[in-house]
């Protein structure tokens, strides 16, 4: 059942990377943003998005989520052994959900002004194969090997609202500029950061030492936002869309989303320590339980968690940069798009290339846009975008990402899709 709900959710959400490069107007393949749609439609001056029903979700998982996740008898089964088996160098899990809660735009003298409220939930985790294997299979396999956990091991989560004001203007017949200025309100933030974490377990059979010994070296930090007041965790970001019509057939564009920051009020916890353990030293005149408590105290001292409260820390938002080119065929019913997108991750970038083909069916005011994209998660990502205009004023957009993933769920490393409903009047 969970799988079914997920399937329905996928249909109900939108995929913003795809959203940025397809036509939003069934009979005008050059229109890529809603503000431009309002600008070109001379009969309408207002655009309202249906509240709470427009959002998009983007999920990446490497290994694919269905390689280790299944539902059975109302239970969610997580197969850690399968998870471990499918991790190559490191695992990564990314969930990006963007909800458009309110959106309103109006045109005034060829300028479009927009206002709205959006919400974004961005979660990212990464675990190296060594860490996964250590947790799942234990440390026996790493006997006499040093396990070093690098900065590919982290968890990051941020959750924030954006109150934006947008301004769109045609600079001339070739250039269209659309910007949004966002006041950010951070809601929640959690993250871990591993600098240098290493283990070494040795065997010492037939020696005067303990048969096993351990060396543990930690240098990790954890942070969580500390303030939940309305005026705390504020930030600023901007969206920029620039469209350049080189000629009637060729258009270049770029779109930058959520380029900004939040000044988080957070509590930081860090632990740095080195501990060499060769067994609890115990003499018979001691109390065993006391010695275990003493060892516990020693560990707490060594790996003492340094707490720093109410620190203001500026952290970048997970912005996205999209560069693309569109080629429109002479019949004005077909279009080819090519784009390159960069998604900022916690300590790296996700690079995605995409090719789309737009086919417009003017009889039905309907467009269908199949696309192919590739990134490090998925080299065969086929998606489809469906656009329909109803009664000249109501627009519905549905799209679904990674169609092959439904055919072969075991190798499904990303899911995405969305819906966008709005009215022009």
């Amino acid at each position: 059942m969970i799988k079914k709900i997920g399937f329905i959710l996928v249909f109900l959400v939108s995929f913003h990377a795809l959203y940025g490069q397809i036509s939003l107007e069934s009979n005008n393949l050059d229109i890529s943003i809603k503000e431009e749609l309002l600008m070109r439609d001379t009969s309408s001056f207002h655009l309202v998005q249906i509240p709470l029903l427009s959002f998009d979700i983007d999920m990446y998982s490497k290994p694919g989520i269905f390689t280790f996740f299944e539902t059975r008898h109302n239970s969610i089964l997580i197969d850690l052994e399968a998870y471990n088996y499918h991790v190559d160098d490191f695992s990564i899990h990314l969930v990006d959900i963007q909800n458009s809660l309110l959106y309103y735009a109006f045109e005034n003298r060829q300028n479009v002004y927009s206002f709205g409220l959006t919400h974004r939930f961005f979660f990212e985790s990464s675990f190296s194969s060594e860490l996964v294997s250590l947790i799942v299979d234990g440390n026996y396999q790493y006997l006499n090997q040093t396990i070093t956990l690098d900065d590919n091991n982290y968890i990051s989560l941020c959750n924030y609202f954006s109150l934006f004001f947008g301004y769109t203007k045609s600079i001339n017949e070739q250039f269209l500029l659309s910007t949004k200025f966002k006041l950010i309100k951070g809601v929640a933030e959690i993250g871990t950061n591993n600098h240098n974490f290493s283990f070494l377990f040795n065997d010492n059979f037939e020696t005067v030492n303990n048969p096993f010994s351990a060396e543990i070296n930690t240098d990790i930090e954890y942070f969580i936002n500390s303030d939940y007041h309305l005026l705390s965790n504020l930030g600023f970001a901007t969206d920029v869309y620039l469209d350049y019509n080189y000629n009637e057939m060729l258009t270049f564009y770029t779109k930058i989303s959520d380029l900004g920051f939040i000044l988080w009020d957070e509590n930081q916890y860090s632990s740095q320590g080195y501990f060499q353990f060769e067994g609890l030293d115990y003499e018979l005149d001691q109390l065993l339980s006391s010695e275990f408590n003493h060892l516990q105290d020693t560990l707490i001292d060594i790996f003492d968690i340094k707490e720093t409260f109410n620190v203001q820390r500026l952290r970048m938002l997970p912005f996205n940069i999209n560069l693309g080119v569109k080629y429109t065929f002479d019949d004005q019913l077909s279009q080819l798009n090519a784009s390159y997108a960069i998604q900022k991750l916690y300590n790296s970038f996700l690079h995605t290339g995409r090719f789309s083909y737009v086919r417009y069916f003017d009889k039905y005011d309907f467009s269908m846009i199949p696309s192919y994209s590739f990134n490090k998660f998925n080299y065969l990502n086929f998606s489809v975008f469906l656009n329909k205009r109803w009664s000249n004023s109501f627009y519905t957009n549905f799209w679904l990402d990674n169609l092959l993933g439904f055919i072969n769920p075991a190798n499904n490393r990303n899911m995405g899709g969305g819906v966008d409903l709005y009215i022009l009047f």
Partner: protein
Amino acid sequence: MMRVSRVIITFFLFIIGFYACQKDGVEIQGWSPELISPIINATITMSDLIPERGTTEYDENNLIHLAFRSDEIYVLPSELLLDITGLNLDTMVTIEQLVVIAQDDAAIAPFINSLLDFPFPPNQEVVGALFGYLNADIIEPFYFQFDEFSDAAFNSGNLEIEITNNLPVIIENVEINISPGSGVYWDVDIVDLSPEETAVHIIDLSNLNITTSSSIELDIETLTIENVGAEMVELTPQTGFEFSFAITDVGFDNITLPLGGDTVDVDLALFEDFDSGLRLKHPRFTINIDNPFGLSGDISGQLIAFSQYGESESLDVEVGIDPNSTSSATYEDEEIEGVIELPPSVIEYEAHASMSFSAGDIYGEDPLRLGVDIDFPLDVNAANLSLKDTIIFNGINYDIAKIKRMLLHYNFVNKFPLGTEFSLVLHDSLNPITNLDTLEFIGSGNSGNNIINPAIVNESGNVIDSVISSGVLTMTDSEINNLINTNKIIIDITLSSADSQDQDQYVSIYSDSECLLKVGLETEFTLD
């Protein structure tokens, strides 16, 4: 049409809501980590197993000794000796006693009984003719018992014998034969001894020898009492004869005093840990005598040691006694090896003293003291030593079903100079009668037996290097269950010289000798 669509939408919303609100359980599967970890480095010293208490002592080098010293195993007080030199015995022969004896003589008993009331009232008058029937024939010999000595050779002294007539009539004649034993006889004749009159007779004891006797025999051979005819006389229960013996100015060339026998009050708990056959390199048993008197002589006797199984060994001892000085006799090595090999759990003694002294040699209030000084250092050769100690363990609250396997790897660093069997006895204090399990640490290189080789020692028997024994205990489900549920772990160590490098080698057991048990865990358990 609209109504149908609304119904459909409502239906789907209900289905979605129903399933969305349904609580799903999250189950983890395929999570069975294999872990290794060092656990414990337990140091077990000999002082843990043989604590210093009671007669167990550590010397300045921490060598363990069974050491005991007592200056007063036996005390011979001056009063006892003075009782001997001033021996004073008193006894009384009453008419009532003689009447009792006369009851056996059918010829005179009826007549006597007709003349008096028997048993005697406090006071009665009888006809004086009664005494005509009392003669030596009805008086059996008397014995005056003394326990202070049994054999004595007198070189001086007098025995003063006093006979007091408590009869209401005159004792006209009495002949008494006195014998202190061993063929010595003294005759005492007394004539016309009036009522309330005392006759004194003195015997010279010089050169008198008494052997194996502890009593004086007194035999009245002739007794003639005044016949007062029909005259009435008064009798009381005390009417009779009184005899008194007193020794004065005595001197002994030799006198034997029995010192008796008893258990030597020594805590031999240390030996309880040893099996029979124990051999110590230099055990020493010393008897000390502190003589504050002017007497001399010697004490001889026997020490009898019993093992806990009833076997016994004895040791003959003899110690000279010098006037106003201390003296001692030491028994060591081969002289007491029989006693050590038992090993003893109880030591008893049986002794007597042969002394020469006179009354003037006994002075002061301090007694003559007999003490012992025992020192058994644990320089052992043949030995089997079973030792135990206890670890309180709180157990682990864990579901054994989740443990797929558990192995305990260990390195046993043996610094004990004897072959070592090491076991952990798992115990539940709520069920103290039975042990839950026993984990035996059998080294991989120990060719089937569980004796871990002793540490390497030098010629002096001191440890110069440790011996390592490694192995792994593959725990069964039952053993795992018992291990995590035990609340008391008994360390059971048996030390044995059986595997010594040199069978003639003595090794020293020091309190700081130790063995190190270093245990690491290898386990696989499921966290599903």
